[in-house]
């Protein structure tokens, strides 16, 4: 079956989530991916939204991470305080985030492009991203990959990845056993080297070459000799995405 890059990203992201775990979900593609995981292989995935929705059965894609869909048939309609405190306590296993820029250590920028005092583009700011990236177990970033977005140095460090490298999160006072886990783009899936904490390729999406990845990355990526190929979306996944999760084509187009 034909599919587009957004659908592939949604599926790759959904497959990361394990049944019986919890995930804090940000605006956009993360919502689609978490909803898909819940419908396909992780019925007991605990989806949590920063505005207070805990454990909803999401009927269709919410427009806001605080709208009524985020606590449809939920186990609890709580508050930002409640959810963020849960994350700070260690109850949230995964966080799904988007970003405008990422650096080799998985630090994220969603605040400004250009100089802070006179930005070329003003972006929304942290929102809940800094909190999610600080407090949740494993952060998964979903974003477009190109040289402007994958940069050696961010214009602004909004959300912590591994900061300056090994040990830096601990030294800054961030909770142990947290940090970026995967980066999923239209080209492939990347993880982080356990020693250097720099980004490395885990799998190429079908048809994507090493050159494609190198040309769309503004820093030195660790590319192993042999990397896997991402599994394409299944007909079941595509049907769910198009007919039930995002029937209006808000995100998947």
């Amino acid at each position: 079956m034909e599919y587009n890059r957004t659908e592939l990203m949604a599926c790759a992201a959904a497959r990361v989530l394990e049944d019986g775990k919890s995930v804090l979900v940000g605006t956009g593609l993360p919502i689609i991916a978490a909803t898909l995981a819940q419908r396909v292989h992780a019925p007991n995935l605990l989806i949590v939204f920063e505005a207070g929705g805990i454990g909803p059965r999401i009927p269709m894609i919410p427009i806001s991470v605080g709208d009524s869909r985020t606590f449809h048939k939920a186990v609890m309609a709580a508050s930002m305080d409640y959810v963020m405190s849960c994350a700070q306590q260690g109850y949230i296993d995964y966080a799904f985030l988007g970003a405008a820029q990422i650096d080799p250590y998985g630090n994220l920028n969603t605040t400004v492009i250009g100089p802070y005092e006179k930005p070329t583009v003003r972006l929304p700011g942290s929102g809940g991203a800094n909190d999610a990236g600080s407090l949740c177990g494993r952060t998964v970033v979903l974003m477009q990959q190109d040289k402007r977005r994958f940069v050696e140095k961010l214009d602004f460090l909004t959300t912590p990845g591994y900061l300056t490298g090994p040990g830096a999160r601990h030294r800054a006072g961030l909770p142990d056993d947290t940090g970026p886990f995967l980066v999923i783009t239209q080209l492939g899936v990347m993880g982080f080297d356990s020693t250097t904490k720099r980004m490395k390729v885990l799998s190429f999406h079908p048809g994507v070459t090493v050159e494609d990845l190198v040309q769309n990355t503004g820093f030195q990526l660790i590319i192993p000799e042999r990397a896997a190929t991402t599994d394409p979306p299944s007909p079941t996944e595509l049907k769910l995405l198009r007919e039930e999760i995002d029937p209006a084509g808000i995100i998947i187009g």
Partner: protein
Amino acid sequence: MRLLEEGRGELLGWLDPDVARRWIMQNKTRRPLDKRMPLRQAVQRFIRDGDYFAMGGFGHVRVSMAGIYEMIRQGRRHLTIAAKTAVHDIDVLIGAGVVDRVDCAYGFGHELRGLSPTGRRAVERGGVKIVAEISNAGFQWRFKAAAMGLPFLPARVMLGTDTFHLSSAKVVEDPFSGKPICLLPACYPDFALIHVHRCDRFGNAQIDGITMEDIDLARASRRLILTTERVIDEEDIRSNPDRTVIPFFLVDAVCEVPYGSHPGNMPGLYYSDEEHMSHWLSMSKTDEGVSEYMEKYVLSVDNFSDYISLIGGQEKMDYLRRVELLHTPLTVPWARRG
């Protein structure tokens, strides 16, 4: 406690806890007064030029758009917004020239709808100044510190980032664990405007669904204006006291405004009006479009019920109710497909 680092953002809304207590003791009545009043009067009495304020709800969910339109009609100027997930609220307030300074956790975006043309334009041109950055939990817990009557709350967020460097928080060595920890200064906005599902004439309020930051924001704000879908009888409050999320003594004004969150979502009652949002997002691409929008939907109408007639009246609100209840599919003019 050893001070390790200080953010360089402007500290707004902070009060010495004894100053805050004294203000509350002297200015917040414990008498059950009938606080119902027209929204116009509430805005006149409690909102001043130059105030620092926060909106309840979540930017385009359970947000007092009625209160915002009234602030615009009364020509309030030079307000600083605590942008704790500010979406359509801040967009319209910047477009109308009410807000020119932003204490920012989230602004200038419309979540799934993309970036906001008005807000971005204003910041990029320099007409609107960002005075500090913070995270969403950071703002939530700044309000919580104020709600607890404390000078600050410690939290493990913002550490190691530029979000911290541009915030008004401080990092100290935690005397218990020895680890660095972020201290969030208490935040007492001059006023907050919160839209609720129902409350009685004294201000005892119920909210259906998630409460976002409103339980703490209501306690942190010095003045609190409630707009409500419905004013209910005191006995209905007293029959279900566990449902009260804002008690009367926090509240300064009660204004009944049905559909007061339009074009935002009001959980359980009506979904967001994506047709209207799309209309705003396209008009707000130019300054002329913004003026035209304000003239048509805000300045030339007297009150919120006239506005509802203008956006499609009862028929439109019935449709949005069916969408909310999942009885009718949502159409999204700004979607990638469609």
